[in-house]
């Protein structure tokens, strides 16, 4: 839902970032307002996951210039854990397995870290149990997954559901979902999309990174951005995604070859 007077939650300005000596983000501009759903599409390797990890604060990436404001304050100055506590959420494209750490305990500690920041009381194991049972229903996940180690031995689709369960518990203001749809079967896609729609509201904003229209059929975006060579090359409405589905990305090369873009991209 677009309201031009809605408060800005996330404002990315001319963001450049590199990994080791390799520049990856080369001037990303993007503004997310409350209530909006954005989709970022683009070829493999264009920098979508990098953008999401830079926003979440992954230590492998160095921001070389540009800024990111989260509700008006400098996001890049914060530790990754602090970014999460104030309501930024990243659903990973490839969630890692953490053997030995109980999923339930992990979810409880994470939830309480967020709640503490919000000034809410800490949930003890019983109160948390009630909450988690309720949120499990959002993703229709089997409670047995709570007893296992974080993501360990989960199938691809199960890992993605576990990501959305975390989102449901943390109630973020800005959720970045990196290819949450990949690896999901048809029913799971519907369930996850339903969950995301349920969690999205007038006060939050969602950034969906995806390759496929079928996700955008289920979660209808207000804006679609095409990323190429570390920048947002074009922005449009939901129709842009349909156009991409039809035309592919060949036109991107032509656009990148334009003198202005070409000079910057090098």
């Amino acid at each position, binding site marked *: 839902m677009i309201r031009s007077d809605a408060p800005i939650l996330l404002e990315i300005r001319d963001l450049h970032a590199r990994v080791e000596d390799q520049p990856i983000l080369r001037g990303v501009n993007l503004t997310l307002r409350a209530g909006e759903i954005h989709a970022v599409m683009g070829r493999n390797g264009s920098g979508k996951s990098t953008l999401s990890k830079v926003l979440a*604060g992954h*230590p492998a990436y160095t921001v070389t210039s540009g800024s990111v404001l989260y509700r008006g304050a400098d996001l890049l100055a914060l530790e990754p854990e602090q970014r*999460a*506590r104030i309501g930024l959420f990243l659903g990973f494209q490839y969630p890692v397995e*953490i*053997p*030995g*750490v109980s999923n339930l*305990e992990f979810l409880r500690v994470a939830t309480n870290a967020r709640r503490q920041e919000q000034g809410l009381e800490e949930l003890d194991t019983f109160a948390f149990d009630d909450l988690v049972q309720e949120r499990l229903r959002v993703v229709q996940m089997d409670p047995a997954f709570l007893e296992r180690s974080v993501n360990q031995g989960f199938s691809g689709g199960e890992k993605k559901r576990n990501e959305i369960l975390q989102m449901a518990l943390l109630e973020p203001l800005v959720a970045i979902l990196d290819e949450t749809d990949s690896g999901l079967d048809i029913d799971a896609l519907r369930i996850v999309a339903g969950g995301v729609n349920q969690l999205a509201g007038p006060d939050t904003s969602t950034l969906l990174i995806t390759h496929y229209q079928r996700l955008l059929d289920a979660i209808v975006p207000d804006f679609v951005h095409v990323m190429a060579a570390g920048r947002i090359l074009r922005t449009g409405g939901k129709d842009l995604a349909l156009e991409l589905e039809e035309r592919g990305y060949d036109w991107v090369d032509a656009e990148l070859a334009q003198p202005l873009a070409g000079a910057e991209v090098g």
Partner: protein
Amino acid sequence: MSSATVGDLVSQPYKYGFITEIETEKIAKGLSEDVVRLISAKKEEPPFLLDFRLRAYRHWLTMQEPDWAALGYPPIDYQELIYYAAPRQQQKKASLDEVDPALLETFEKLGIPLSEQKRLSNVAVDAVFDSVSIATTYKEKLAEDGVIFCSISEAVKEHPELVERYLGTVVPANDNFFAALNSAVFSDGSFVFIPKGVACPMELSTYFRINSGDTGQFERTLIVAEEAATVSYLEGCTAPMFDTNQLHAAVVELVALDDASIKYSTVQNWYAGDENGVGGIYNFVTKRGQCRGARSKISWTQVETGSAITWKYPSCVLQGADSVGEFYSVALTNHRQQADTGTKMIHVGPRTRSTIVSKGISAGHSSNSYRGLVQVGPKAVGARNYSQCDSMLIGDRAAANTYPYIRSQQPDANIEHEASTCRISADQLFYLQSRGIGFEAAVSMMVSGFCRDVFNQLPMEFAAEADKLLSLKLEGSVG
């Protein structure tokens, strides 16, 4: 701090590094037959014990310091050590009120209050300061059940026949270089006797405190559980920070008769030296339990976090038919610490079973080796062993080794060994952080997850303690 990497783990300053100013009686440094006699005389020991010491000493003279462990340290000059030091206040006091307040204060500072009002409600404590037992709590209450819990010096005086019957029967005086040295000069330690059929009504615990900088520490502990008796015992250890190394060569012997069960837990946090490896305790310890009776059980649980060098193999001799030996170990090394630790499970009797779970965590430039022997003798029909040895590396400069030895003379023995090595990855930490969990909390979450199988074996009161201790060791660990 967002550029923090896993490789930058360093432990936070050691909390227990203070020295207590107290008047101490010491003998001149150096070791000789006269020194052995002097120690025995000072302790007013019966002849059998002097004999024991002298035999051990004479044997020690013929022995070589072992060099097979994966450890490196400069040669120890045994003539430079002092072999007897005791707080001046000699006589063990009948009541705590008479104990030097400086000593009580020391233990209070270490979190071990001894006074009637403050002591732990369900744990009897023997407090050993520089190898001399200064107080034992709940003695009278335990005596009601016939349980003897006192210092070994006291046991020598009050129950000489028990000491004579069991001392040196599990770890003979000539067992190894350090055990022989201990047998010759041991100063004090704990003695536990649980009579037939008695389940010890509370946890027993000894807290060892090294205070002196130039004194060798030679504790001796002996625990006997008669038929169908059970006991759970825990030892804790700390020492001040000196820039020299202190030798600690203890011997622990456990005896379990028919259907008896002994659970022995250790939380070892001796001073480990600084980040460059200067100072710290040399912890050369011989611990062995003998499942003498049928269906007896001995279980070792150790959490080893301190010491510059750890050389220690708590073992079980499974003599009785159907007896059970267990070894659960977490060894954490950081900076320049070295640990070579593990166990020996000696299957003698039929259908004996043993379980080994070892978790080694190495950070910094440390080296952490598991060394274990599973031996199955010709009469151990149907013996079974399960071993699991996991290593976790933090950073990329630490080393982990596993040396499992298996010797079986029993074709139908069932011996299973599993091993794994993992590294805490930056992506795992980032995942936890991106859910609001701080870097250090994330590290300790993964480390405790890794150690859970072992922590579950600790007495409840101490499991949380051990968890905290590990976190503490890794706290402030972010560069």
